[in-house]
């Protein structure tokens, strides 16, 4: 391995969120010391990601199949949709285990200040699903921040012409906190106590 490779991997890793130059270099030297099978396995898994993981054409989830295993599961209630900001939030709700409907991942929150407008969110697909699947209720589970609330209102507006019931998870989730880090019990209660918008 030439030092050029070390530099290159360091530069690549440091583009990951939360990883600075120093951490990236530490990771590279850790890999150089690690078991070679582990390093090969890691590399191959990373290399296969683009060919193995797909964005679900129905809900926006990322999975090994398209549609994702949640959308393909016939035992799930297709008439109930839980809208989340991002995939870790979907996992957080799934961890609770009581929600048996489907999901919709927005991949962001309405925040013009950060350059995210209505068209940058996965909303057209949501509208399409609601109309096609005879959905009876859409639960908006975005975080209780200014942008999370604004996104909930945007969804309500977007779906107004479909006549579907739109509800918002209850205020049990502490303000400003992220859905992903909210404990499962609190999240379950917030879902159960949702309010019609």
């Amino acid at each position, binding site marked *: 391995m030439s030092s050029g490779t070390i530099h290159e991997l360091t530069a690549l890793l440091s583009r990951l969120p939360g990883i600075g130059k120093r951490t990236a270099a530490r990771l590279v030297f850790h890999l150089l010391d690690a078991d070679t099978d582990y390093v090969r396995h890691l590399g191959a898994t990373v290399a296969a990601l683009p060919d193995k993981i797909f964005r679900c054409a129905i809900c926006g989830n990322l999975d090994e199949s398209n549609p994702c295993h949640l959308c393909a599961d016939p035992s799930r209630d297709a008439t109930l949709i839980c809208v989340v900001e991002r995939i870790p939030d979907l996992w957080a709700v799934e961890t609770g285990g009581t929600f048996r409907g489907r999901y919709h991942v927005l991949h962001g929150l*309405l925040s013009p200040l950060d350059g995210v*407008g209505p068209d940058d969110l996965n909303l057209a697909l949501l509208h399409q699903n609601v109309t096609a699947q005879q959905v009876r209720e859409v639960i908006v589970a975005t975080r209780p*921040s*200014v*942008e999370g*609330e*604004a*996104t909930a*209102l945007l969804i309500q507006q977007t779906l107004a012409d479909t006549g579907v019931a739109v509800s918002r998870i209850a205020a049990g989730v502490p303000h400003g906190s992220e859905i992903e880090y909210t404990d499962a019990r609190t999240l379950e209660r917030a879902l159960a106590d949702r309010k019609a918008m």
Partner: protein
Amino acid sequence: MPQNTLSKVQIDSLSLVQFRNIARAEFAPSPRFNVISGRNGMGKTNLIESIYLLGALRSFRTSVRREIISQGERDAKISARFGQSLHGLSVEIQLGAQGRQISMDGKAVVPDGDYFRTLPMVLFHPGNMELVQGAPETRRRFLDRALFQADAAYPQLYRQYARALANRNTVIRRQPLDMRALVPFDSALAKLGSQIVASRAAFTAQLSQFFEEGVLEVSGGNRGAIRYRPRVSGDEAAFLQVLDAKRQLDVDRGYTTCGPHADDLDFEVDGRSAKKYASQGQQRTVVLAAKIAETRVLSQRCHRMPLLLLDDVSSELDRDRNRHLFLFLSGVGGQVFITTTHPDHISTSGERADFCVTNGALSSL
């Protein structure tokens, strides 16, 4: 209430590292009066600023962190132990290139609305003389700073409102106007804005009572009042109506014209606007009475006497108003820090410690 049982914010020890021109300082102040003297440019205001930062988590002189860190150094540190009713609570603030870190009793904390209520402080400095004649922003800042300490819900409300406002302003500056993006932030502004106005109205009403007492004490006969002048008043629905009605104007101007970010206060003396009619002396009375009122409301709302920081104010007040200031200070029984170039002009009654600052070095006199 006897002074020794009064609950108050009291610093037992303060330590500074690389804070402006103070390389290192250890400071054990008196629980009552602390008079800090020194020639111009020696570091008196810097010391006051460091204490203020512990309570307000921001400076009253700058919003640029780099300016606070000693030139040529990478970080600054302020640590204090609070005694009396705060039972030895230690608070440390570290300012570095990365950001700011706050810890309480050694544990890192993200300050919430209760933080400011725990350590109420009232600052009185020459800049306050602008309170009457200055721009509305000066008076809003006075009100907001007090409310951050008086109302645990206010800091979050304030930040959320600012965020919603910035988002709405971004939306209205973009052509063509996207109503889908505008409507949610109009709702947010209406909801948050009406709550801010309600908090400000309740607080100003309380402040005005104490202000009236203060003006009467200081002037010996004038009647004072503080009137809250919200740009938009009423509930959420009323706010929405105004935002709707002003939409085109806002788009033309490129910013949101109405809302609590444009509110003002009116100080009145004998029923007339102090801004328009008060004499120089009356204006000083208004400022002094406003600070007295702020202290009294905060001690009521926070259930403890705020720590008082007086930066060079004696030079801004005449003899008579200085006498009233010190009369007030003797009565309240809190911990007081006073800076001056003329320590012999400071006539305190009660326990007093004198300190001197020379080129950033602090010594006990």
